């Protein structure tokens, strides 16, 4: 298959079109810019809709409307924009409507910076809006994986009738890598049992709604949703394990940071240090079993992130405090170097000996 050189943001947009996305609703923000610009050019030529909304708030509600008709719909934004979308994301989750939401993360809090960051891990995995709900969160670490996960995101969303977030960052969005687009099946889930497409006077009316005024009714809905979440945790969690079999130190990292960590792990291995890397591909569900497997011979765990320590909480929870878990991070848009990570690995290696 032919490989093409593409920016992460553009590859993501192209993959979305190939995956059958028919509508994009968004609002300009850095560093997701190329994604919406690419779609503004391509959608009209390829039978899709590109609409620049008046705000992030409006854009996510357009997603709610479009997705409620059973159409494959997406939006993309960067950190401050996702905060604005959180109202709509909560309604979409509460209405059991599938869609794709992309966050090309930048530095925060507030206006923060426009450089790459992973400061939205907590927001994505634990706080995307008010109420008891989850999104499936996918975290690619290469332009190729961005492409692959876009397709999986649409499929998972429809399979479980829920919104899915692809958590990218300024690094993945802006860098260019060779990428190939797999043959994508245009098969979509059957949405005829719930989508608002007009009754055609052939069925009862469908109501796409998140309001349950009776407490018991709402509890029942939420509990049902959590049974679905339990099934997703059981079957959909995914991770990459790199040189973990004999690893005495396991470095955990997600997204772009894992590329830097991999370089550091290779350098450490060259120096004879038994170190491996664990990379969650699904941030929710967090791949707990895979982490336990990756750390079966480990004496130390190090979480490396482009933030002040967010995923490290889930690492500790998954390990049930059975192993010491250290943290190293750079924040505010600063990217850690392989040598900085190597130095942290060596600190732990010294501690072990």
């Amino acid at each position, binding site marked *: 298959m032919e490989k093409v050189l593409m920016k992460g943001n553009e590859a993501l947009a192209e993959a979305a079109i190939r995956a059958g996305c028919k509508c994009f609703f968004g609002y300009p923000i850095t560093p997701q810019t190329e994604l919406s610009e690419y779609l503004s050019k391509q959608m009209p030529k390829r039978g899709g809709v590109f609409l620049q909304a008046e705000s992030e708030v409006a854009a996510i509600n357009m997603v709610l*409307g479009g997705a409620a008709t059973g159409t494959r719909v997406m939006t993309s934004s960067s950190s401050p924009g996702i905060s604005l979308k959180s109202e709509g994301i909560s309604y979409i989750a509460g209405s059991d409507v599938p869609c794709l939401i992309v966050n090309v993360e930048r530095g925060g809090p507030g206006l923060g910076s426009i450089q790459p960051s992973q400061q939205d891990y907590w927001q994505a995995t634990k706080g995307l809006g008010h109420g008891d709900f989850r999104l499936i969160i996918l975290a690619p670490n290469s332009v190729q994986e961005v492409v692959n996960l876009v397709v999986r995101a649409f499929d998972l969303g429809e399979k479980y009738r829920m919104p899915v977030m692809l958590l990218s960052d300024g690094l993945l969005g802006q860098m260019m890598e060779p990428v190939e687009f797999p043959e994508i099946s245009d098969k979509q889930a059957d949405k005829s049992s719930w989508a608002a497409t007009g009754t055609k006077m052939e069925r009862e009316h469908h109501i796409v709604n998140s309001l349950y005024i009776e407490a018991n009714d709402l509890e029942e809905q939420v509990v049902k949703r959590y049974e679905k979440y339990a099934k997703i945790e059981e079957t959909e969690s995914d991770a990459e394990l790199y040189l973990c079999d004999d690893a005495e130190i396991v470095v955990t990292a997600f997204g772009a940071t894992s590329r830097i960590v991999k370089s550091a792990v290779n350098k450490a291995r060259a120096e004879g240090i038994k170190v491996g890397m664990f990379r969650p591909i699904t941030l929710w569900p967090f791949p707990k079993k895979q982490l336990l497997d990756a750390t079966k011979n480990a004496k130390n765990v190090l979480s490396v992130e482009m933030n002040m320590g967010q995923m490290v909480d889930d690492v500790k929870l998954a390990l049930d405090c059975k192993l010491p878990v250290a943290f190293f991070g750079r924040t505010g848009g600063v990217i850690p170097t392989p040598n900085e990570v190597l130095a942290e690995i060596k600190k732990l290696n010294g501690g072990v000996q």
Partner: protein
Amino acid sequence: MAVVFERPKSLCDVRLHYCAGCTHGIIHRLVAEVIDEMGIEGTTVGVCPVGCSVFAYNYFNCDMIEAPHGRAPAVATGVKRARPDLNVFTYQGDGDLAAIGTAETVHAATRGENIAIIFVNNGTYGMTGGQMAPTTLPGQVTTTSPYGRNPKTAGYPVHVCEMLSTLDGVALATRTAVDTVPHIRETKKMIRKAFENQRDGKGFSIVEVLSTCPSNWGLTPKECIKRLQEECMPYYPLGVYKDVDTNVANAELLKMGGAI
């Protein structure tokens, strides 16, 4: 026996939750009659607001979507862009449409979204118990303007149709009322025109219906109608503020004195 009056098919056979004397019931019925008469129930999707008519999804027989507060025009935009073959309407109150949803309303209008908006203006937040709305009249007492709305501190009411009539994307902006039989007939005519505009691809149509709220105005239904006529209508003149078919624009309406 011959049936002379019955429930429109597009209304569900359920008890409405609205207070006695509230005019939501009349407006629901008018929307349903129009949908029936145009034969479009099977291809219509309605979008409900947050407010007194939040449960409208249980009352209209067509497919329905519940939007967050104020976002109905954005949700409707999403539906219409994804499925231009569907007839899409929103049913919104004044707090929803003219306060928290002002941006969504104005931008759906200026984009000329091909949707119909039924805007029920009773000058108060009914569902939360009668707080000051963007359309509450100067001097009007509400639970959050207990000394009467003072424009110096609380600002002036929003004239939605007047404002929207200045936008190129708007096909129809009209204000009606449901206080008398002729006005109810006129309201139905305008709702039908809004749906027909959508059918004909003319763009954004809004029908503002002056309505009453006996519970929160603290008046009997009859007194409410009197207040609507004597206090609300002079402040919110009825009339067609913009109609692309007849080239009625705001300026001409003012010359006409605002009468239908």
